[in-house]
Protein backbone atom coordinates (compact mmCIF):
# COMPACT_ATOMS: atom_id res chain seq x y z
CA UNK A 1 0.00 0.00 0.00
CA UNK A 2 0.99 3.61 -0.44
CA UNK A 3 3.50 4.27 2.32
CA UNK A 4 2.84 8.01 2.16
CA UNK A 5 -0.87 7.65 2.88
CA UNK A 6 -2.07 8.15 6.46
CA UNK A 7 -2.54 4.90 8.38
CA UNK A 8 -6.33 4.41 8.65
CA UNK A 9 -8.22 3.09 11.64
CA UNK A 10 -9.14 -0.57 12.02
CA UNK A 11 -12.56 -0.30 10.34
CA UNK A 12 -11.30 1.47 7.23
CA UNK A 13 -8.22 -0.76 6.99
CA UNK A 14 -10.30 -3.94 7.02
CA UNK A 15 -12.99 -2.85 4.51
CA UNK A 16 -11.77 -5.21 1.74
CA UNK A 17 -11.85 -8.13 4.17
CA UNK A 18 -15.38 -7.23 5.28
CA UNK A 19 -16.54 -6.85 1.67
CA UNK A 20 -15.25 -10.28 0.71
CA UNK A 21 -16.65 -11.82 3.87
CA UNK A 22 -20.12 -10.34 3.20
CA UNK A 23 -20.14 -11.66 -0.37
CA UNK A 24 -18.76 -15.01 0.72
CA UNK A 25 -21.60 -15.44 3.22
CA UNK A 26 -24.19 -14.29 0.63
CA UNK A 27 -22.93 -16.76 -2.00
CA UNK A 28 -22.81 -19.63 0.47
CA UNK A 29 -26.15 -18.66 2.03
CA UNK A 30 -28.03 -18.54 -1.26
CA UNK A 31 -26.56 -21.87 -2.34
CA UNK A 32 -27.68 -23.43 0.96
CA UNK A 33 -31.16 -21.85 0.72
CA UNK A 34 -31.55 -23.17 -2.82
CA UNK A 35 -30.32 -26.58 -1.74
CA UNK A 36 -27.39 -26.45 -4.16
CA UNK A 37 -25.02 -28.41 -1.95
CA UNK A 38 -23.33 -29.74 -5.11
CA UNK A 39 -21.76 -26.34 -5.76
CA UNK A 40 -21.41 -25.18 -2.17
CA UNK A 41 -17.79 -26.38 -2.10
CA UNK A 42 -16.98 -23.73 -4.72
CA UNK A 43 -16.67 -21.28 -1.81
CA UNK A 44 -13.76 -23.26 -0.31
CA UNK A 45 -10.85 -21.76 -2.37
CA UNK A 46 -11.85 -18.19 -1.42
CA UNK A 47 -12.37 -19.39 2.15
CA UNK A 48 -8.71 -20.42 2.22
CA UNK A 49 -7.77 -16.86 1.23
CA UNK A 50 -9.91 -15.51 4.06
CA UNK A 51 -8.04 -17.75 6.51
CA UNK A 52 -4.66 -16.78 5.01
CA UNK A 53 -5.57 -13.10 5.35
CA UNK A 54 -6.53 -13.48 9.02
CA UNK A 55 -3.31 -15.39 9.72
CA UNK A 56 -1.23 -12.73 7.92
CA UNK A 57 -2.85 -9.95 9.94
CA UNK A 58 -2.33 -11.92 13.16
CA UNK A 59 1.32 -12.68 12.37
CA UNK A 60 2.07 -9.04 11.51
CA UNK A 61 0.43 -7.95 14.78
CA UNK A 62 2.47 -10.51 16.72
CA UNK A 63 5.66 -9.24 15.11
CA UNK A 64 4.81 -5.65 16.08
CA UNK A 65 4.15 -6.56 19.75
Amino acid at each position, binding site marked *: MNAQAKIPNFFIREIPFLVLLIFWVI*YAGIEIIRGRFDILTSVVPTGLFIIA*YIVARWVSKENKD
Partner: protein
Amino acid sequence: MDLFLALELIALALTGLLIWHSARTRGAAFTWMFFLGGAFLGLIRENVVAQVAALNLYSYSPATFHLWIGAAPLILMVFWSYTIYLSLTFSEVILGGDLIGGKRSARVILLAMVFMASYACLNEAFASMYPMVLWKFKPALVIWGQTPAMVLWGYAGMSLIFLTALLIVYKLRIRTVYRVMIFCASGIVMIPLHLLWIAIFRLATSFIG
Protein backbone atom coordinates in the same frame (compact mmCIF):
# COMPACT_ATOMS: atom_id res chain seq x y z
CA MET B 1 -37.73 -6.30 -3.58
CA ASP B 2 -36.39 -8.93 -5.94
CA LEU B 3 -33.48 -10.87 -4.40
CA PHE B 4 -31.16 -10.29 -7.32
CA LEU B 5 -31.89 -6.55 -7.49
CA ALA B 6 -30.94 -6.44 -3.81
CA LEU B 7 -27.68 -8.23 -4.67
CA GLU B 8 -26.94 -5.74 -7.46
CA LEU B 9 -27.51 -2.80 -5.10
CA ILE B 10 -25.44 -4.42 -2.33
CA ALA B 11 -22.59 -4.97 -4.81
CA LEU B 12 -22.68 -1.33 -5.89
CA ALA B 13 -22.70 -0.16 -2.27
CA LEU B 14 -19.81 -2.44 -1.29
CA THR B 15 -17.82 -1.21 -4.28
CA GLY B 16 -18.39 2.30 -2.96
CA LEU B 17 -16.81 1.14 0.30
CA LEU B 18 -13.80 -0.23 -1.61
CA ILE B 19 -13.42 3.09 -3.46
CA TRP B 20 -13.47 4.87 -0.12
CA HIS B 21 -10.86 2.44 1.24
CA SER B 22 -8.67 3.02 -1.81
CA ALA B 23 -8.93 6.80 -1.54
CA ARG B 24 -8.01 6.69 2.16
CA THR B 25 -5.16 4.19 1.93
CA ARG B 26 -3.75 4.54 -1.59
CA GLY B 27 -4.49 8.12 -2.58
CA ALA B 28 -6.65 9.88 -5.16
CA ALA B 29 -4.49 9.21 -8.25
CA PHE B 30 -4.47 5.45 -7.71
CA THR B 31 -8.20 5.41 -6.93
CA TRP B 32 -9.23 7.37 -10.02
CA MET B 33 -7.05 5.20 -12.25
CA PHE B 34 -8.12 1.91 -10.75
CA PHE B 35 -11.86 2.37 -10.55
CA LEU B 36 -12.46 4.61 -13.55
CA GLY B 37 -10.18 2.41 -15.68
CA GLY B 38 -11.98 -0.66 -14.36
CA ALA B 39 -15.36 0.87 -15.22
CA PHE B 40 -14.33 1.57 -18.81
CA LEU B 41 -12.83 -1.88 -19.14
CA GLY B 42 -15.97 -3.56 -17.80
CA LEU B 43 -18.33 -1.44 -19.87
CA ILE B 44 -16.55 -2.03 -23.18
CA ARG B 45 -15.41 -5.62 -22.64
CA GLU B 46 -18.71 -7.01 -21.46
CA ASN B 47 -20.66 -5.29 -24.23
CA VAL B 48 -18.22 -6.61 -26.82
CA VAL B 49 -18.37 -10.17 -25.45
CA ALA B 50 -22.17 -10.13 -25.16
CA GLN B 51 -22.75 -8.70 -28.63
CA VAL B 52 -20.02 -10.12 -30.86
CA ALA B 53 -21.32 -13.55 -31.83
CA ALA B 54 -18.01 -14.56 -33.41
CA LEU B 55 -16.36 -14.69 -29.98
CA ASN B 56 -18.74 -17.52 -29.05
CA LEU B 57 -18.43 -16.98 -25.30
CA TYR B 58 -21.53 -15.93 -23.34
CA SER B 59 -24.33 -13.42 -22.92
CA TYR B 60 -26.13 -12.19 -19.81
CA SER B 61 -29.51 -13.50 -18.74
CA PRO B 62 -32.12 -10.77 -19.28
CA ALA B 63 -34.38 -12.50 -16.78
CA THR B 64 -31.86 -12.09 -13.96
CA PHE B 65 -30.35 -8.62 -14.15
CA HIS B 66 -32.36 -5.44 -13.61
CA LEU B 67 -29.86 -2.68 -14.25
CA TRP B 68 -28.26 -2.59 -17.71
CA ILE B 69 -25.86 -0.50 -19.70
CA GLY B 70 -26.08 -1.59 -23.32
CA ALA B 71 -25.98 -5.38 -23.58
CA ALA B 72 -24.16 -5.76 -20.28
CA PRO B 73 -25.44 -5.52 -16.71
CA LEU B 74 -24.53 -2.24 -14.96
CA ILE B 75 -22.81 -4.20 -12.23
CA LEU B 76 -20.10 -5.22 -14.72
CA MET B 77 -18.87 -1.62 -14.66
CA VAL B 78 -17.64 -2.23 -11.15
CA PHE B 79 -17.12 -5.99 -11.20
CA TRP B 80 -13.57 -6.18 -12.54
CA SER B 81 -12.19 -3.34 -10.46
CA TYR B 82 -13.95 -4.67 -7.36
CA THR B 83 -12.58 -8.21 -7.70
CA ILE B 84 -9.10 -7.13 -8.77
CA TYR B 85 -8.98 -4.64 -5.89
CA LEU B 86 -9.78 -7.45 -3.45
CA SER B 87 -7.15 -9.67 -5.09
CA LEU B 88 -4.54 -6.91 -4.84
CA THR B 89 -5.30 -6.05 -1.21
CA PHE B 90 -5.41 -9.64 -0.03
CA SER B 91 -2.15 -10.45 -1.84
CA GLU B 92 -0.38 -7.41 -0.42
CA VAL B 93 -1.46 -8.24 3.13
CA ILE B 94 -0.61 -11.95 2.87
CA LEU B 95 2.80 -11.31 1.28
CA GLY B 96 3.57 -8.02 3.03
CA GLY B 97 4.03 -6.46 -0.39
CA ASP B 98 3.25 -3.18 -2.11
CA LEU B 99 2.51 -3.28 -5.83
CA ILE B 100 2.90 0.41 -6.56
CA GLY B 101 5.75 0.86 -4.09
CA GLY B 102 7.71 -1.89 -5.85
CA LYS B 103 7.87 -4.23 -2.85
CA ARG B 104 7.41 -7.85 -4.01
CA SER B 105 5.36 -6.60 -6.97
CA ALA B 106 5.78 -9.71 -9.11
CA ARG B 107 4.77 -12.02 -6.27
CA VAL B 108 1.82 -9.80 -5.41
CA ILE B 109 0.57 -10.05 -9.01
CA LEU B 110 1.05 -13.83 -9.03
CA LEU B 111 -0.89 -14.30 -5.79
CA ALA B 112 -3.55 -11.87 -7.07
CA MET B 113 -3.94 -14.20 -10.05
CA VAL B 114 -4.44 -17.18 -7.72
CA PHE B 115 -6.99 -15.20 -5.72
CA MET B 116 -8.86 -14.30 -8.90
CA ALA B 117 -8.98 -17.95 -9.97
CA SER B 118 -10.33 -18.81 -6.50
CA TYR B 119 -12.93 -16.07 -6.75
CA ALA B 120 -13.90 -17.35 -10.20
CA CYS B 121 -14.83 -20.69 -8.62
CA LEU B 122 -17.52 -19.30 -6.34
CA ASN B 123 -18.66 -16.45 -8.57
CA GLU B 124 -19.01 -18.44 -11.78
CA ALA B 125 -20.55 -21.48 -10.12
CA PHE B 126 -23.12 -19.07 -8.68
CA ALA B 127 -23.49 -17.31 -12.05
CA SER B 128 -24.12 -20.57 -13.90
CA MET B 129 -26.59 -21.78 -11.27
CA TYR B 130 -28.69 -18.63 -11.04
CA PRO B 131 -28.26 -18.27 -14.11
CA MET B 132 -26.56 -14.94 -14.62
CA VAL B 133 -24.52 -16.06 -17.60
CA LEU B 134 -25.71 -18.01 -20.65
CA TRP B 135 -22.79 -19.92 -22.14
CA LYS B 136 -22.79 -20.24 -25.91
CA PHE B 137 -20.42 -23.18 -26.20
CA LYS B 138 -19.95 -26.61 -24.66
CA PRO B 139 -16.73 -26.49 -22.64
CA ALA B 140 -14.15 -29.27 -22.72
CA LEU B 141 -13.36 -28.90 -19.02
CA VAL B 142 -15.80 -27.85 -16.32
CA ILE B 143 -15.75 -26.96 -12.62
CA TRP B 144 -18.66 -26.57 -10.19
CA GLY B 145 -22.10 -26.05 -11.73
CA GLN B 146 -20.88 -27.09 -15.22
CA THR B 147 -18.96 -23.81 -15.41
CA PRO B 148 -16.17 -23.80 -18.01
CA ALA B 149 -12.77 -24.28 -16.34
CA MET B 150 -11.65 -21.52 -18.67
CA VAL B 151 -13.05 -18.95 -16.20
CA LEU B 152 -10.29 -19.63 -13.67
CA TRP B 153 -7.69 -18.90 -16.32
CA GLY B 154 -9.71 -15.91 -17.55
CA TYR B 155 -10.04 -14.25 -14.15
CA ALA B 156 -6.34 -14.81 -13.38
CA GLY B 157 -5.39 -13.36 -16.74
CA MET B 158 -7.50 -10.27 -16.23
CA SER B 159 -5.74 -9.62 -12.94
CA LEU B 160 -2.33 -10.04 -14.59
CA ILE B 161 -3.15 -7.73 -17.51
CA PHE B 162 -4.95 -5.08 -15.41
CA LEU B 163 -2.35 -4.84 -12.63
CA THR B 164 0.59 -4.84 -15.06
CA ALA B 165 -1.00 -2.07 -17.14
CA LEU B 166 -1.80 -0.14 -13.95
CA LEU B 167 1.79 -0.42 -12.77
CA ILE B 168 3.16 0.77 -16.12
CA VAL B 169 0.81 3.74 -16.43
CA TYR B 170 1.07 4.71 -12.75
CA LYS B 171 4.86 5.06 -13.11
CA LEU B 172 4.60 7.52 -16.01
CA ARG B 173 5.97 10.92 -15.03
CA ILE B 174 2.98 12.92 -16.20
CA ARG B 175 0.05 14.68 -14.54
CA THR B 176 -2.50 12.48 -12.78
CA VAL B 177 -5.31 13.44 -15.13
CA TYR B 178 -3.30 12.17 -18.12
CA ARG B 179 -2.43 8.94 -16.33
CA VAL B 180 -6.12 8.38 -15.61
CA MET B 181 -7.03 9.06 -19.23
CA ILE B 182 -4.26 6.81 -20.57
CA PHE B 183 -5.24 3.97 -18.23
CA CYS B 184 -8.90 4.27 -19.23
CA ALA B 185 -7.90 4.22 -22.90
CA SER B 186 -5.60 1.24 -22.31
CA GLY B 187 -8.73 -0.87 -21.95
CA ILE B 188 -8.75 -0.95 -25.74
CA VAL B 189 -5.46 -2.86 -25.55
CA MET B 190 -6.34 -4.91 -22.45
CA ILE B 191 -9.54 -6.34 -23.95
CA PRO B 192 -7.99 -7.98 -27.05
CA LEU B 193 -5.07 -9.17 -24.91
CA HIS B 194 -7.49 -10.83 -22.51
CA LEU B 195 -9.53 -12.37 -25.33
CA LEU B 196 -6.27 -13.76 -26.73
CA TRP B 197 -5.40 -15.11 -23.26
CA ILE B 198 -8.75 -16.93 -23.14
CA ALA B 199 -8.39 -18.18 -26.71
CA ILE B 200 -5.06 -19.81 -25.79
CA PHE B 201 -6.80 -21.83 -23.04
CA ARG B 202 -9.69 -22.81 -25.30
CA LEU B 203 -7.28 -23.92 -28.01
CA ALA B 204 -5.14 -25.88 -25.54
CA THR B 205 -8.19 -27.69 -24.10
CA SER B 206 -10.02 -28.18 -27.39
CA PHE B 207 -8.37 -31.58 -27.82
CA ILE B 208 -9.91 -32.93 -24.60
CA GLY B 209 -13.12 -34.87 -24.82
